[in-house]
C-alpha cells in the first residue's frame, strides 16, 4: 500500500519536475506523453490501491521535519473518502490531460503547461491523501500555486495575470485562517495528525471547537470560492479551459468541502460551526446561481454555477450529510468537467469567442459536443435520474430531514436555487447550441475538435449515470453511503422512502419547471428576441447579477484601494517622512547645533579670554559657594 500511495504522488511530481526542468528541450510529443502517462500512472496506482484496500490505513512514508515535540511525518491516510476522491481526481485529471494535448496543440509553451498540470495533480493528491494537516496544507498551497500560474498561463495579457494573482491572494486569506487553526490545534493537542485530532475533539470545550471550525470554514471558503471570498473564481476563467475544468471545477475548488468533510468528526460537534457552514453554503449556492443567470461569457456561467454547486456541497456538510456532500462532489466533478471541456470545444470551434449571445447553431456543427454538453447541463439542472439529480437531492433531503428551522429555511433556498440552476443551464444550452449559425464563419475543421469531443463521452456517461454510486434508499441504497457512512462521523437522520420520494418529486418538478421556463424564454423564436435585447444596455438587476452583485467593486473600494493608498502613505509619510525624515532632521539639527557652537570661536582673542575668564569665575564661584 505504501508503494501505491507514494507512487501515486511521486509519479506526477516527477513528471512535473521533469517537464519543468527539461520539458522545453524535449520533443513536444514526448513532453505531452510524459505528462499524460504520469497522471494515468497515478490512476493505475489509485486503482491498485483501491483493489488492495481493506480498511482505513495510515502510512508513514518518511519524516518531514521534527523540532522537539513538533513532529511532522510525511504520512498518508487512505480511507473511503480519500480513496474515492483519488480515483476521481486521477481519472478526471487524466482525461483532461488528454484533452489538453489537443486543446493546447497550438501553444508553444507546452512544457510549462504540462509541468504545472502534473504538479497540480501531485499537490491535489497530497492534499487528499495527507494524514497530517501540514502535509494537507502543502497540497492546499501547492494547488493554489499551480492554479495561480495556470490562470495566468497566458501571462502577456494583463487581465490573465491579474486574475491569477487575485485567485492566489484571495485563497491565501482563507489558507491563513487554516494555518491559524493548525497552530491552534498543535497548541491544544501537540499533534497535527488528522486521525488523532479527529479522535480527540470531545476533549475540547465547545467554544474552541466552534472557533476551530470557523477557522477551517474560512480556509474552505477561500479555496472553494464561497461567500465572501468567491470573487476570484469567475476571474479565474482567464486560464485555459482545461485548467478551468480541472482546477476550478472538478478538483481544487472542492478541496474546501473535502477539508470540512475530513475534519467533520472534530468540528461537527459544534452546531454553530455546522450552521455557519450550512448558511455559507446556502447563500453561496443562491448567489452563484443568481449570478449565473445573467452572465454572457460561457465560462463565467460555468464558474458561477461551480460556486453555486459547491455551495450545495457545503450545505451538505453543514447538514451533516458528509456522504451526500461527497456524492455531489464526485458527480459534480464529472459533469462540471464535462461542461467545461464541452465549453472548451465550443470555444475552440468559435475561435475563442466566449460570449454566449454570439454563439448559436452549434447543435449541428458539433453534434457530439452538443449531446455531451446537454448531458452535463441535465446533470447540472438536476433533471430526474441524472447523477446530478440524485446527488443534489440527497443533500436537500438531508437538509430537510435535519429538521431545524434553519436547515428547512435553507432547504427552501436550495430548492429555489435548484429552480434557477435548471433555468440558467438550459439558457446556456439554448443560446449556445440552438438557433441559427449566426457567427459560424471560420469554424475549425471538425477534425480539430473531434479528439477533444471524444474525451467528453466518458465524462458524460459518468455524469449521467453517476447516480448509481449512491442510489436513494428506495432503490436499494447506495454504494457510497455504505462505503463512506461509518467514517464520516455524522449520522444524518435517515429519511423514509416515502419522504424521500416526495422530496425528490418536488425537486424534479422544480428542475423541470426551470427547464421549461428556459425553453419559454430562450427556446425557439424567443431566442432571437433575447439576442436583440442583449445588444442593449443591461437592466440594473441584470447588471447587478452580471457583476456578481458588485462584490468586486465593493472589495476594491473597501480593501484594495485603501490598502494601496495606505501602503503609499506608510512608505512616503511614515517611512520616508517620519522615520527617515525624523532621523535626517535630527541629524540636521545636531549638525546645526554644532555649527552654532562653532560660531563661538569668533577669531577674536578677547572673546577667547573672556570665555576663559568667565569659566574660571564660574568655577571659583562654585568653589566659594561650596566652601561657605
Amino acid at each position, binding site marked *: 500500500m505504501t508503494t501505491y500511495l507514494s507512487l501515486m504522488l511521486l509519479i506526477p511530481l516527477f513528471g512535473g519536475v521533469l517537464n519543468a526542468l527539461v520539458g522545453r528541450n524535449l520533443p513536444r510529443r514526448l513532453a505531452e506523453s510524459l505528462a499524460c502517462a504520469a497522471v494515468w500512472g497515478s490512476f493505475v496506482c489509485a486503482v491498485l490501491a483501491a483493489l488492495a484496500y481493506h480498511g482505513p490505513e495510515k502510512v508513514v512514508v518518511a519524516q518531514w521535519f521534527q523540532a522537539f515535540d513538533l513532529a511532522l511525518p510525511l504520512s498518508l491516510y487512505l480511507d473511503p473518502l480519500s480513496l474515492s476522491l483519488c480515483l476521481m481526481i486521477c481519472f478526471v485529471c487524466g482525461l483532461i490531460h488528454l484533452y489538453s494535448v489537443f486543446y493546447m496543440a497550438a501553444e508553444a509553451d507546452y512544457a510549462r503547461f504540462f509541468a504545472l498540470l502534473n504538479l497540480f495533480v501531485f499537490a491535489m493528491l497530497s492534499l487528499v491523501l495527507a494524514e497530517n494537516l501540514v502535509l494537507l496544507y502543502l497540497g492546499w498551497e501547492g494547488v493554489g500555486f499551480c492554479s495561480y500560474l495556470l490562470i495566468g498561463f497566458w501571462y502577456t495579457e494583463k487581465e490573465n495575470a491579474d486574475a491569477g494573482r487575485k485567485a492566489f491572494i484571495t485563497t491565501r486569506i482563507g489558507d491563513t485562517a487554516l494555518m491559524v487553526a493548525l497552530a491552534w490545534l498543535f497548541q491544544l493537542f501537540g499533534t497535527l495528525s488528522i486521525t488523532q485530532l479527529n479522535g480527540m475533539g470531545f476533549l475540547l470545550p465547545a467554544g474552541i471547537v466552534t472557533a476551530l471550525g470557523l477557522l477551517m470554514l474560512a480556509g474552505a471558503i477561500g479555496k472553494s470560492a464561497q461567500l465572501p471570498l468567491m470573487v476570484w473564481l469567475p476571474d479565474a476563467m482567464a486560464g485555459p479551459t482545461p485548467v478551468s475544468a480541472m482546477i476550478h471545477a472538478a478538483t481544487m475548488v472542492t478541496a474546501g468541502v473535502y477539508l470540512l468533510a475530513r475534519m467533520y468528526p472534530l468540528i461537527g460537534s459544534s452546531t454553530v460551526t455546522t450552521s455557519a457552514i450550512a448558511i455559507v453554503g446556502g447563500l453561496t449556492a443562491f448567489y452563484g446561481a443568481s449570478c449565473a443567470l445573467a452572465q454572457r461569457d460561457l465560462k463565467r456561467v460555468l464558474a458561477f454555477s461551480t460556486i453555486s454547486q459547491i455551495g450545495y456541497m457545503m450545505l451538505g456538510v453543514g447538514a451533516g450529510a458528509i456522504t451526500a456532500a461527497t456524492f455531489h462532489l464526485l458527480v459534480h466533478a464529472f459533469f462540471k468537467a464535462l461542461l467545461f471541456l464541452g465549453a472548451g470545444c465550443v470555444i475552440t470551434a468559435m475561435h475563442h469567442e466566449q460570449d454566449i449571445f454570439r454563439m448559436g447553431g452549434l447543435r449541428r456543427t458539433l453534434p457530439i459536443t452538443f449531446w455531451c454538453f446537454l448531458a452535463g447541463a441535465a446533470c447540472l439542472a438536476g433533471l430526474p435520474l441524472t447523477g446530478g439529480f440524485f446527488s443534489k437531492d440527497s443533500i436537500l433531503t438531508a437538509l430537510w430531514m435535519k429538521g431545524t428551522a434553519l436547515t428547512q429555511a435553507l432547504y427552501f433556498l436550495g430548492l429555489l436555487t435548484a429552480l434557477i440552476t435548471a433555468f440558467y443551464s438550459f439558457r446556456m444550452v439554448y443560446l449556445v447550441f440552438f438557433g441559427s449559425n449566426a457567427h459560424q464563419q471560420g469554424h475549425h475543421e471538425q477534425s480539430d475538435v473531434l479528439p477533444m469531443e471524444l474525451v467528453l463521452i466518458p465524462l458524460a456517461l459518468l455524469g449521467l449515470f453517476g447516480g448509481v454510486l449512491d442510489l436513494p434508499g428506495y432503490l436499494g441504497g447506495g454504494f457510497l453511503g455504505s462505503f463512506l457512512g461509518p467514517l464520516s462521523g455524522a449520522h444524518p437522520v435517515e429519511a423514509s422512502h416515502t419522504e424521500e420520494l416526495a422530496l425528490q418529486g418536488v425537486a424534479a418538478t422544480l428542475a423541470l419547471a426551470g427547464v421549461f421556463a428556459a425553453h419559454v424564454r430562450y427556446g425557439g423564436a424567443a431566442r432571437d428576441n433575447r439576442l436583440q435585447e442583449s445588444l442593449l444596455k443591461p437592466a440594473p438587476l441584470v447588471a447587478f447579477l452580471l457583476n456578481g452583485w458588485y462584490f468586486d467593486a465593493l472589495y476594491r473600494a473597501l480593501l484594495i484601494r485603501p490598502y494601496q493608498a495606505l501602503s503609499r502613505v506608510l512608505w512616503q509619510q511614515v517611512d520616508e517622512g517620519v522615520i527617515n525624515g525624523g532621523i535626517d532632521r535630527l541629524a540636521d539639527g545636531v549638525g546645526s547645533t554644532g555649527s552654532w557652537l*562653532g*560660531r563661538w*570661536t*569668533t*577669531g*577674536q*582673542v*578677547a572673546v577667547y*579670554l*573672556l570665555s576663559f*575668564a568667565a569659566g574660571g569665575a564660574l568655577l571659583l564661584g562654585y568653589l566659594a559657594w561650596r566652601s561657605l
Partner: protein
Amino acid sequence: MSIPLFHVLILAGILFAMGLACTIAWRANVIMMLIGIEIMLNAVMLTLVGGSAQWGSADGQIFSLMLMALTSSEVSLALAMVVYLHRRKQSVDTDDFTSMKG
C-alpha cells in the same frame, strides 16, 4: 610687624583681577594686553612671597624668582611676535587678527 596672609591674598586677588580685566578689555593693543599679563604675574609673585612669609619657607620666593625669568622671556617672545605681526599687518589690534574662525 607682619601683614596677615589674607590681606596679601586680597591685594594679590585684586591685582590679578585688574590684570585680567586689562588683558581682556584692552584688546585694541597687544602691548597693553601684555602689560595686563605682567600685572597678573605680579599678583602671582605677590602671593608666593606672601606665602613664603607665612610659612617661613623660601620655596615661594624661589618660585617668584623663576617667574620673573619666565615673565621676561615671555615678554620678549611676545614682543618679537608683535613686531613681526606689526610688520605684516601694520596693526597691534587683536581684532584685526581674525582671519581664522568658526
